[in-house]
């Protein structure tokens, strides 16, 4: 993956700093609404983590999966089911458990479906997610369609010393923001390493990757498990935030929303899907505040963006950057960088 143009790097840095400063100045800005905004932003950042994990599959490797909600949900359920009822659960133990469960689920599902491709892969991911959905929906241990509650947030402590108080929305906000930034940097590094190059190669030409002596199935499975585990981490954060899990968090609609965020943001760019999550949820909140028929302007915006921005928000930003530079040599390099999703992959 190419380094980003400097303008975009500064832009992302500025946005991150702005976000990080929000809990400090938000109160004077929005007064009573502050805690609501803080909660919404935390929620959006959690969804951004899901979108980021999905981009590793859709944008980088060319595998369109609608199973992210399954891993998101299974980790959330694991946390709530594992936590004792009247005692705060140890964060680190819960984290290890949630990551292990979602990774195991992704590995199991991946082993069964990794050989299918295109729309059959999409449908196979839906099939297994729906089975999981009905498992939680129809069984008593998971509270059925009502879901189950987590009464006390996990306790983040080392040797008895509390590091973070997750009951405080501000701490949770910073935990989620920190996770988002770290995961983004981690995935970016990962894509610059040989591992990431093989994944990118698979998207463009799987046969050639095979002929170079790499086993594409292994790499696809690895990407699927990594993405599933990250989605699981997001699911654990979400269950912590709301203290509640329900079958809705396992539904294919949530996966579809994540996919929309990825496409809207610009797939394959990693930062695009994060912006896509903010754009999608931000517009949702904005329109929902204006009219009960928020779906109408939302749908029109989505349609307009498909027609006008073929490579999403990230594509637009990259294009603006390359247009500003006059040097023709750079243009060639950037135009290839802009072509994030030229290849037809479904």
């Amino acid at each position: 993956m190419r380094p980003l143009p400097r303008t975009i790097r500064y832009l992302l840095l500025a946005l991150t700093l702005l976000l990080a400063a929000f809990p400090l100045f938000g109160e004077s800005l929005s007064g009573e609404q502050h805690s609501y905004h803080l909660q919404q932003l935390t929620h959006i950042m959690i969804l951004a983590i899901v979108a980021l994990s999905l981009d590793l599959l859709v944008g980088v490797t060319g595998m369109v999966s609608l199973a992210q909600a399954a891993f998101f949900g299974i980790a959330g359920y694991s946390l709530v089911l594992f936590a004792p009822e009247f005692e705060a659960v140890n964060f680190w133990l819960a984290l290890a458990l949630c990551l292990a469960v979602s990774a195991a689920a992704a590995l199991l599902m991946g082993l069964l479906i990794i050989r299918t491709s295109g729309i059959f892969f999409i449908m196979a991911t839906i099939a297994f997610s729906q089975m999981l959905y009905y498992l939680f929906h129809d069984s008593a241990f998971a509270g059925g369609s009502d879901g189950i509650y987590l009464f006390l947030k996990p306790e983040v402590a080392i040797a008895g010393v509390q590091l973070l108080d997750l009951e405080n929305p501000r701490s949770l906000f910073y935990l989620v923001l920190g996770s988002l930034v770290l995961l983004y940097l981690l995935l970016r590094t990962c894509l610059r390493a040989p591992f990431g190059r093989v994944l990118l190669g698979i998207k463009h030409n799987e046969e050639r990757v095979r002929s170079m002596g790499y086993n594409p199935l292994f790499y696809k499975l690895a990407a699927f498990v990594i993405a599933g585990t990250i989605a699981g981490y997001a699911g654990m954060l979400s269950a912590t935030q709301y203290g509640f899990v329900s079958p809705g968090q396992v539904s294919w609609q949530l996966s579809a929303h994540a996919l929309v965020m990825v496409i809207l943001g610009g797939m394959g760019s990693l930062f695009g899907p994060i912006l896509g999550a903010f754009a999608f949820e931000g517009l949702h909140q904005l329109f929902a505040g204006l009219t009960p028929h928020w779906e109408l302007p939302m749908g029109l915006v989505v349609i307009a963006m498909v027609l006008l921005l073929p490579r999403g928000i990230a594509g637009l930003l990259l294009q603006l950057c390359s247009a500003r530079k006059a040097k023709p040599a750079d243009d060639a390099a950037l135009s290839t960088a802009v072509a994030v999703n030229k290849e037809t992959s479904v």
Partner: protein
Amino acid sequence: MDFSTVLIQTMNGLQYGLLLFLIASGLTLIFGIMQIINLAHGALYMVGAYLAFWLTALTGNLFLAILLGLPLAALLGVLIERFLMQALYRRDHLDQVLMTFGMILVIDSLRSIAWGNDVHSVAIPALLEGSIQLTETLEYPVYRLFISAVCGLIALAMYGVLQRTRLGIVIRGGASNREMVQGLGINIRVIYSLVFAAGTALTAFAGMIAAPVSSVYPGMGNQILIIAFVVVVIGGLGSIRGAFLAALLVGLTATWGAVLVPEYAGMAIYLLMAVVLLFKPRGLFA
């Protein structure tokens, strides 16, 4: 379990399957020929059901409502194809996914503005109101038989058109080799328009005819969409015959699943699809 229960459940399964075929056949035609993944297909099914509700309320007769509603649905299909889909033929599949997702939102909110969010019922036409006595205690509604018969006839007619007419040859040709069909001097644009209108009309018709049985409610489209995709994938993409057999299989599995293992009924069809994909990764009739 006695014989008449088995008979009734099987008939219910077949009726559900035949109805699913109407929806899935439009989806598979549009995918097979135009290479478009149409997420709004379920929303168009819902539009059909609401048209049936609205026009029945206006005219007092479901048949009249269907007669008036079908051209409206086909026209809607033509407009969507002309103004939204045509821009996307050369683009990534995922752009079509996003576009049709946007269409679901728009259609849903227009539905909410026009008809509200209540659940409505549509009366069965007086002609078909009765039931057939199977045993002394069990009877089977005539209207469900009527649905099965109509769907079966449409399936036959589709088979006839696709296999036996010149238009059918062109459509099948368009599915297997677009460039060649164009090279033979056939305007593929017109074919696309026709196929999209036919697919929309089919799914809307399914919504109309199912309205008295399923009732009419806001989420009905999204619910049926995934099941229709399951049918399409089990049958093999683009295969009408595959969609037909898969629809019957899914209909029977869903109905019998609810009878035999009620606690895991929701899972049954997805389990079926998973098993099919494990052994036949491209569907049964690809």
